[in-house]
């Protein structure tokens, strides 16, 4: 299991989360900048989706997110990182994921947060199934997520 760096937290849960609490959790002395990403359930271009089911691989999920957080800590100067990802049935408009990074300088916070999201989207074992008037369907992986993640690969 990759060791989660100090002052970092990873949670996978069914329950909703409070973004103000999470923001406080990444605040550190002299962290001048916090960048936070929140993802929400979308109705889709034709507004036909009413909810999603989020499946994951317990154990591997936490391990893979910890590895992503650890890599972000090595690549940028970050004070603290928190990641919360929900699983189970979520209605349109509900919060799915929150990733927050604090840093002395905003450039580190922006890049660290975006890096974690891009890797989360391509490396953490979550799968979405959409529910709606069409019935149920698995969400297909997007090539654009792969190419966003590849921007961060080292030579």
């Amino acid at each position, binding site marked *: 299991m990759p060791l989660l760096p100090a002052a970092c937290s990873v949670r996978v849960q069914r329950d909703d989360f409070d973004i103000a609490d999470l923001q406080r959790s990444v605040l550190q002395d002299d962290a001048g900048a916090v960048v936070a990403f929140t993802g929400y359930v979308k109705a889709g271009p034709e507004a036909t989706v009413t909810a999603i089911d989020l499946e994951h691989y317990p154990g591997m999920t936490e391990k893979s997110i910890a590895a992503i957080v650890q890599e972000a800590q090595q690549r940028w100067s970050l004070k603290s990182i928190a990641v919360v990802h929900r699983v189970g049935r979520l209605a349109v408009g509900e919060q799915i994921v929150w990733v927050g990074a604090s840093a002395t300088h905003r450039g580190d916070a922006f890049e660290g947060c975006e890096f974690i999201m891009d890797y989360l*989207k391509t490396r953490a074992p979550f799968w*979405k199934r959409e529910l709606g008037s069409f019935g149920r369907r698995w969400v297909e992986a997007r090539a654009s997520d792969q190419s966003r993640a590849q921007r961060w690969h080292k030579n």
Partner: protein
Amino acid sequence: MIQVRFFARVREALGEDSLQLAHSAEVASLDALHEHLCQRGAKWREVLSEVNLLRAVNHDVVHGDQALVAGDEVAFYPPVTGG
């Protein structure tokens, strides 16, 4: 024993979420286990031949083959779509 797990579209198509297999020469490596599962029937071969199928051993993604030992947990799953 080798613990085998299936997720998402793969789990659903197979109608199984996990299997336990005795460790043996037939499942001594990831590729051997993969072929062994394909031999369970046409549906298994079809689902497990999907070009984007991913494999993990003990919660780490594995690209290429790898030896398996008793107690290993192997997972087969489609590309991830969280976040």
